[in-house]
């Protein structure tokens, strides 16, 4: 860019600026304060509040700093009499209608209007007329409205249009009757809707779950890391009286900028669910009893020793959530490996492990998160990125606004909030073949690797116009990336997808990246919570069973960390059977439930997000450590401490840690500096034939992804939760004689459930969507397979 630098004078200070930059950007950068309401660094300029009026030499009237481009030699006064008079006058106008309800307003204490009224307002209003009143609207479970307080800055409206990509709020009516709202009674459905709470300068839009529960000045702000997707958004906890009152974004331009997804913002409520487990419990002769930690842990030691003694240590397996911290996962794998088994895994939603030995150090994004917005072409495979990694989606959306072509190969026709150049919607078993077709489209280019296996794999693929177009787009992109999403990683032919995507990436000069589904998938790989690799990706001397085989083989004892297997595992039904059949099951869990009690023998209450110190490693490979900011409830303890004591009880070496920091240091020392690459010579497997019947398609809705979100009250009232319904295309439904609301008989692998039907045009005509994470579908079996349908 050709940037002309100009010099301006503000309040007598000479400042350098890019020509054409808005004055307020320059003053902000130089820490000269100009009051404002409508201006926001990440939104377009509306210049409708007029609070930022300043005095510009030679201008006949005061000018709005947010909409005045700088020019060489410009002389600006921000505090001259003319500027101050203008600002005061604007404030007086704003206060004509704004209610004087600060004492009962949640924004009080952090209200931009309140602050500026202190600086620019009069003591007493000159207006005695009635103030206008606007009826409140219910816009959903997350955002509370008090629209009488709105000052019409339109930040929330612009946010919807420009950032969320979903215009839900608007300004209806005119003049004094103008109102901000949805016009019709409607809930906001954007996965980023909570950001309007931060944007609203007044108390018109506030947090519903937080409402009336604390004042800003009573709370302490402590930094943290969001625990739900692989982005690792930076957050601030607001704490009062040892309780997390709310979570807000912390600015980090290279990760989440100033935004936060609703899931990351509101999941803290799950900390205070009544099902929290607050004391260790053991099952003795069929009865559950609360015990102290010592009793519980010796019970664990004896139980596990018994199994290892009577069978072998290989009859012991551990499944850990990828939302656990690096430190927890590191100790968990050390515990298992020290006990003589390598049966440890976090990949509870994966079904194909064939190429695990070739996998990169961790499923890497392939580039920094911020780089995504600079791509010219992006191919998404098996991903609902908008709901699964909302912040990544925002970067992609930005890329499309600069002309990036997004290509999509998915099993559901998702409503993405940006333009998609080409999309292919096809049932899961045909996805590898579809991708093979895109590779094949490049056959003439001479760029495809001569690998004979690859040749065989693509030989039978057909190439449609769309596939040609995709191949060409990637080939012609200056910068391109192929992203494998949550559904690709759970795919029964994940290995094939990896190899084909990589072949395509190599042939087109694009990157390849993985969008993993939990906060610490990268950390789990690096910490060695995998059966085939120890910490730092070192190939293990002794290989253990992967998550799926551990359950399939019905081991004698299991240790679980932070999981609700019937909801979290790819095959909930099999998980429950294996756990029920086991002799001894230890569950380190934050919640207790009837289904956990049905299979477990010991429940150890653990601290979770916000309650424990630790580290998450995000998709990009950034290590982000955090502190526990509130104490866990009752007797619950951080899992790393529990695991440390377990190590001590078994008299194992390498468990003498006093802080989580020491654990992290040890891991870091062990692995040294490792680079990661996604450009791997995968072996190319034979592609399996597409299925002929009705295929099951599975996704986990964003607010059903892990135990914490599933226990977060307000999030559970949104539409992004598993609904326990059979989603079916209207055409297939009518062919099967099914209609909206009817109960269908759904059979998979001889398991039968009855589910209400909902017509859903996003589903291909030879498949049905069943969302995972709902108890009613847990007994159905794995995420993929043939479905038989009928009327109940």
């Amino acid at each position, binding site marked *: 860019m050709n940037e002309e630098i100009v010099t301006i004078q503000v309040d007598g200070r000479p400042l350098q600026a890019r020509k054409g930059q808005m004055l307020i950007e320059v003053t902000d950068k130089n820490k000269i304060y100009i009051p404002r309401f409508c201006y926001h660094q990440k939104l377009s300029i509306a210049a409708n509040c007029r609070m930022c009026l300043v005095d510009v030499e030679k201008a006949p009237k005061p000018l709005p700093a947010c909409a005045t481009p700088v020019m060489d030699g410009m002389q600006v006064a921000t505090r001259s009499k003319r500027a101050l008079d203008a600002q005061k006058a604007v404030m007086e106008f704003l206060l004509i209608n704004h209610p004087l309800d600060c004492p009962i307003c949640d924004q009080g204490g952090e209200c931009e209007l309140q602050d500026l009224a202190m600086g620019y307002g009069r003591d007493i209003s000159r207006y005695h007329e009635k103030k206008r009143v606007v009826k409140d609207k219910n816009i959903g479970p997350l955002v509370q409205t008090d629209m009488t307080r709105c000052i019409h800055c339109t930040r929330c409206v612009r946010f919807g*249009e420009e950032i969320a990509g*979903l*215009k*839900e*709020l*608007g*300004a*209806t*009516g*005119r003049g004094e009757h103008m109102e901000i709202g*949805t*016009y*019709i*009674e*409607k809930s906001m459905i954007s996965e980023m809707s909570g950001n309007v709470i931060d944007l609203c300068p007044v108390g018109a839009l506030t947090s519903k779950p937080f409402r009336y529960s604390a004042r800003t000045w009573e709370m302490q702000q402590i930094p943290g890391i969001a625990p739900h997707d692989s982005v690792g958004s930076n957050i601030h906890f607001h704490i009062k009286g040892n309780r997390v009152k709310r979570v807000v974004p912390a600015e980090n331009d290279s990760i989440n900028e100033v935004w936060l997804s609703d899931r990351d913002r509101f999941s803290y409520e799950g900390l205070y669910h009544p099902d929290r487990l607050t004391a260790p419990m053991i099952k003795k002769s069929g009865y559950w009893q609360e015990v102290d930690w010592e009793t519980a842990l010796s019970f664990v030691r004896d139980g596990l020793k018994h199994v290892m003694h009577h069978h072998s240590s290989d009859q012991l397996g551990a499944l850990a959530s990828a939302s656990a911290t690096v430190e927890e996962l590191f100790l968990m794998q050390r515990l298992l490996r020290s006990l003589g088994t390598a049966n440890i895994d976090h990949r509870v939603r994966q079904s194909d492990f064939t190429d695990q030995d070739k996998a990169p150090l961790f499923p890497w994004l392939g580039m920094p998160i911020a780089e995504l917005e600079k791509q010219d072409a992006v191919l998404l495979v098996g991903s609902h990125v908008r709901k699964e990694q909302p912040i990544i989606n925002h970067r992609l959306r930005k890329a499309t606004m600069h002309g990036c072509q997004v290509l999509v190969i998915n099993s559901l026709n998702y409503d993405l909030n940006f333009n998609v150049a080409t999309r292919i919607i096809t049932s899961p078993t045909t996805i590898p073949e579809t991708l093979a077709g895109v590779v094949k489209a490049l056959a003439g280019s001479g760029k495809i690797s001569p690998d004979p296996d690859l040749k065989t794999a693509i030989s039978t693929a057909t190439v449609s116009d769309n596939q040609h177009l995709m191949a060409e787009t990637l080939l012609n992109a200056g910068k391109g990336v192929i992203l494998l999403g949550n559904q690709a990683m759970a795919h029964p032919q994940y290995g094939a997808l990896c190899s084909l995507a990589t072949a395509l990436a190599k042939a087109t000069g694009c990157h390849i990246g993985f969008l993993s589904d939990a906060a610490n998938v990268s950390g789990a790989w690096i910490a060695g919570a995998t059966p085939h690799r120890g910490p730092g990706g070192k190939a293990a001397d002794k290989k253990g069973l992967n998550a799926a085989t551990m359950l399939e083989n019905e081991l004698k004892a299991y240790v679980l960390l932070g999981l609700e297997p019937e909801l979290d595992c790819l095959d909930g039904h099999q998980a429950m059977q294996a756990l029920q059949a086991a002799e001894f099951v230890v569950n380190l869990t934050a919640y207790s439930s009837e289904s956990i009690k049905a299979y477990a023998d010991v429940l150890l209450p653990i601290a979770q997000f916000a309650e424990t110190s630790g580290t998450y490693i995000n998709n990009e490979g950034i290590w982000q450590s955090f502190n526990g900011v509130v104490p866990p409830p009752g007797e619950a303890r951080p899992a790393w401490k529990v695991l440390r004591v377990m190590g001590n009880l078994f008299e194992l070496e390498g468990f003498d840690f006093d802080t989580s920091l020491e654990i992290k240091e040890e891991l870091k020392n062990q692995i040294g500096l490792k680079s990661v690459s996604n450009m791997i010579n995968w072996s190319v497997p034979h592609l399996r034939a597409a299925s002929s019947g009705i295929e099951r398609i599975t996704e986990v809705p964003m607010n059903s992804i892990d135990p914490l979100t599933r226990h977060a009250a307000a999030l559970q009232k949104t539409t992004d939760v598993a609904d326990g319904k059979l989603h079916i295309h209207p055409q297939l439904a009518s062919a099967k004689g099914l209609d909206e609301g009817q109960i269908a008989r759904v059979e998979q692998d001889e398991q039968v459930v009855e589910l209400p039907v909902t017509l859903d045009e996003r589903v291909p005509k030879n498949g049905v969507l069943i969302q995972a994470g709902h108890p009613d579908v847990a007994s159905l079996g794995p995420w993929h397979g043939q479905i038989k349908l009928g009327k109940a």
Partner: protein
Amino acid sequence: MTETAEKIELSSNAREVIDQWIVKYPKEQKRSAVLAALREVQHENQGYLTVPLMDAVADYLDLPKIAVYEVVSFYSMLETKPCGRHSISVCTNISCMLRGADEIVEHIENKLGIKTGESTSDGRYYLKCEEECLAACCHAPMMMVDHVYYENLTPESVDEILDKLD
């Protein structure tokens, strides 16, 4: 009003009219046809718009629904409630006010037995809410009935005009 699942299609006539407007604007500016579209759809629906109709216009022009609600609620010639066949707008802005617009309004209210913003129960008349300057100040007071201007009003001339309507 609440969100509705009810979906309706625009009539083929409406679509035809809208298409004629769409071609007048650059390809990526379909939204520019929104006013013309709403006018036509309102006309077909006895002079008022419903949420499903507004939604249908939004879908047809690829607009967010709220964007259409914004337009409809902004312009006073677009109605969202059933109203009488003949719409009467009496200007009450400054010039007309000085020339007796308030008495004209009062006269109509008494004559029809309704207040501004209401329709007669026989569905014949609709007296619109306070109307702003309609740019006929030099012949104030004035009113607009079904898009036709009537100027230099007196109570008698108003009677005559209104009585003639079916």
